[in-house]
């Protein structure tokens, strides 16, 4: 029989409910698996075994499918009494006095917290290497990055530590690591999942979402998390969406568009092969492949994104001054020196450069030209997407033009960098849902692609994911560098 840690969320839950194994046995298997991989993968910032074992004492009391299911959280999600760092030195040993809404929902449903996992500092980065706690490695090839910023969340699910996890996506931070690690990751519509308790990067772009090894598991997590939260003013107020899993959904008559402007972009062979393969499958399933044109997005989205993300980020990071929590100094002479020393030591260089960029972009003499202009361009971008979705149901495109790169490998190709950004950032600018899905392997590395839907189409998007998973097959658990 397969090890318990290999079970996906639905199967593990069914097994628990049928009494085939206990929550402790499930946790022990997952914990043992995590411990055997961790020295290679380094996904954890904080392991919470003791907390988990306390939680397990109360397992079996809830009818929720999450009861007794282990999970990990990206370390920018607040957990009451448990160290939360955002992978930064500046938060020190801060233990939040409250739970993020997403964790509150999971905890109350009986989910077991195995740990808080690594990320790029304050979610700024795409390798999970820009962390005060060191780099996390890709479980399919530990010489490669897991992607970022939610690299720890993706690696933990790919290596079988846990069947599902949560991350956050400000400009691709769920979709890209899901793709590099060969699992499924959903960046939901902005406003569908409460951000209360998510340490902000770019507030108008940030969105929490799940990672899992099946689309069905994403549906289960979304069914729990997609509900109105009065603590988040951007939380939707409509009735809860229906994420019920139907294994027999189909795509007959659905229109799936490719972006005209992206067709000339360079793709590595495994990615372009996967694109062709998926197009064929979609047609096979009765979908109609079309084309949409996104000229404004192709030209302006990247600059617009950076202007807004940096502007919001630098104000979100103003609160870290050493006065109330986190890292501080005791012997500063005066308040100015205290602020300077706390922030100089506490922030990493990438964070500092984004703070400086954001400060410059919103500085009174430049504010109109950059920040204000970007807010206007953003409206145009949202309108362009809205028009596109009048003529199509989904947009199919890569998440990245290449597979997971080697750790420390820097791609100097600026054009490729720009094109990479264009695959992920516009989705956040327009608040759209984006699904990163597994298509297969090129050698030992997984290949992922991205399907984008109109705002609030998350349930349909996941239904399309179910069809794709049915045809393309589900990912295997990565060897985690141990086998």
């Amino acid at each position, binding site marked *: 029989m397969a090890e318990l840690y290999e079970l996906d969320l639905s199967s593990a839950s069914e097994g628990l409910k049928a009494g085939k194994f206990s929550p402790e046995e499930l946790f022990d298997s997952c914990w043992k698996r995590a411990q055997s991989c961790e020295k290679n993968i380094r996904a954890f910032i904080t392991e919470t075994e003791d907390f988990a074992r306390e939680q397990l004492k109360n397992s079996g009391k809830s009818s929720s499918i999450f009861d007794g299911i282990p999970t990990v959280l990206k370390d920018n999600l607040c957990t009451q009494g448990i160290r939360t760092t955002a992978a930064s030195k500046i938060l020190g040993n801060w233990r*939040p006095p*409250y739970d*993020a809404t997403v964790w509150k929902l999971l905890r109350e449903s009986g989910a077991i917290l195995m740990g808080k996992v690594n990320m790029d500092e304050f979610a700024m980065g795409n390798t999970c290497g820009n962390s005060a706690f060191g780099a996390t490695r890709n479980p399919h090839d530990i010489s490669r990055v897991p992607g970022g910023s939610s690299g720890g969340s993706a690696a933990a699910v790919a290596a079988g530590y846990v069947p599902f996890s949560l991350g956050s996506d400000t400009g691709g931070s769920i979709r890209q690591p899901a793709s590099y690690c060969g699992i499924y990751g959903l960046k939901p519509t902005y406003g569908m999942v409460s*951000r209360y*308790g998510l340490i902000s990067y770019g507030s108008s772009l940030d969105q929490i979402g799940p990672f899992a090894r099946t689309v069905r598991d994403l549906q289960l997590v979304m069914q729990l998390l997609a509900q109105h939260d009065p603590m988040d003013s951007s939380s939707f107020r409509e009735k809860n969406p229906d994420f019920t899993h139907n294994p027999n959904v189909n795509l007959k008559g659905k229109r799936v568009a490719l972006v005209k402007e992206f067709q000339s972009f360079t793709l590595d062979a495994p990615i372009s092969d996967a694109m062709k393969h998926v197009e064929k499958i979609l047609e096979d399933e009765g979908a109609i492949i079309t084309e949409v044109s996104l000229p404004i997005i192709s030209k302006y989205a990247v600059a617009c994104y950076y202007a807004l993300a940096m502007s919001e980020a630098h*104000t979100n990071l103003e609160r870290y*001054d050493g006065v109330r929590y986190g890292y501080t100094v005791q012997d500063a002479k005066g*308040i100015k020196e205290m602020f300077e020393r706390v922030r100089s030591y506490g922030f990493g260089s990438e964070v500092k450069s984004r703070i400086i960029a954001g400060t410059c972009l*919103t500085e009174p003499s430049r504010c109109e030209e950059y920040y204000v202009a970007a807010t206007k361009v953003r409206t145009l971008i949202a309108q362009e997407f809205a028009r596109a979705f009048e003529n199509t149901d989904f947009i199919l495109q890569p998440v990245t033009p290449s597979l997971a790169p080697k750790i420390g490998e820097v791609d100097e190709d600026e054009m490729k960098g720009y094109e990479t950004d264009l695959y992920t950032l516009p989705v956040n600018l327009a608040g759209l849902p984006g699904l990163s899905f597994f298509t297969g392997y090129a050698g030992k590395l997984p290949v992922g692609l991205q399907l984008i839907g109109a705002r609030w189409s998350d349930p349909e998007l996941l239904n399309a994911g179910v069809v794709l998973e049915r045809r393309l097959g589900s990912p295997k658990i990565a060897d985690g560098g141990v086998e």
Partner: protein
Amino acid sequence: MSELIFTPVIGIEIHIRLKTDTKIFCSCSTNTDVEPNTHVCPVCMGLPGSLPRLNHQVVEKGMLAGLALNCTVQPKSLFFRKSYFYPDLPKGHQISQCDLPIVAQGFIEVHDANGNLKKIRVNHLHLEEDVGSLHHSASDGRLEGAAISFVDYNRSGMPLAEIVSEPDVSSAKEAVEYVTTLRRRVIYSGASDVELEKGMMRFDANVSMKCSDGRWGRKVEVKNMNSFHALERAIEYEIKRQKKIMLSGGEILQETRHWNDAKGVTTASRVKEFYRKFIVEPDLPPLIIDQAWIDRVTSMMPEMPDVRAKRYVQDYKLPQEVADFLTDVKDLSDYFEACVKAGANPVRAAHWVRTEVLRVMNEKQIRKVADFGISPETLTNLIAKIDGGKLSTTQAKEVFDYMSANNCGIDEAVKACGISEGGVAGNMLEEIIKSVIAANPDVLDEIKSGRDTKGKKLKFLQGLVMKEVKGQAKPQEVSQTLEKILNA
């Protein structure tokens, strides 16, 4: 050479704490009588991951205050992040509507130097959050140079309205009338109690000078005035200071100055103003106020003091100055209205409220009419007893004092004062009058002789009778009975 004339050009910014149960962006209580850092939560402490959520009560109070200043409610307003670093500011930025306010374009009327009415235009009123409060060990009570500083975040997130005037104010006197009238109207609107001693109203003034030779002085921002008196003194000081510099041909620096109330001077701010920039608060959606909401709040809007005073003159026939006096303080005016509503004669009620009620409140140092022990209904009953001839005015005052001192009802007070209602009358009164006449034969002679043309001697006899009955007889009955006996 003609003498140079200097005209002060003054704009005033006022911060008022709005009256709400909870803070502007969280559900912490706004009660301030608690230990430091007890009314705090992740939101008003600016903890990582926390998000603001707008309190609708704050929006309504902001609308009410705006309407009291004759402003127009804006259908769409926005919140911004106003960035600067200071330990009392937990997020490193203040959430404020600074650039797109909830209400705009109103005015307040004041009297100019010639006693004519002039309008001080109100540019806008916007909503924002208050910061925490700092307590420093330094001798001057300021952050710089303090060995230890403490921060209390109970005040952080308290709802504030910032009211910005146009530079229409021309003197310290006008400034004081502007803030006094504005405060009165805001209290009437129910938006705030504006208790000055609790720091619910703070002032900044922008003062510059225009000289008749065409020179304009630069704008100086004067901060840290917490009372009407401080505002008046600070502006007067600043006008004098700037005039002196301009007379000697000097340049006024554009700067922020700090009012030192103890020394009565303004001093250049030692810290350079923090560099500020604004971005839209991404965690709060635009505040949309539809016409139905505006209508609902407008209908909630209580009568303003000037309207009320007019009504007192027209309906109650009160003199203008009495009406102005009564409406100056809302709760006093409310007390008066309650008396009238309970059936009191308005003129008499106004008199009692202005004299006796205020006298006792002053004597007992009662600040709020609500804490005054005698209810409007009781006062109304007391007045009715005078009108009905059951008590003389002197007696009624005695009863009033007894009630306020002993917190009791009218009947008990009357008894305790040894007064029998209605007093000495009928046969008993006749007998007393006869004995008084018998004891004063010379006076009787004078009256009978017809020399008492002015009725002085008759009044004298009445006085003696009243003294004899200890005031417990109806004056009318005394004079009637007296005349009857004299004419018999």
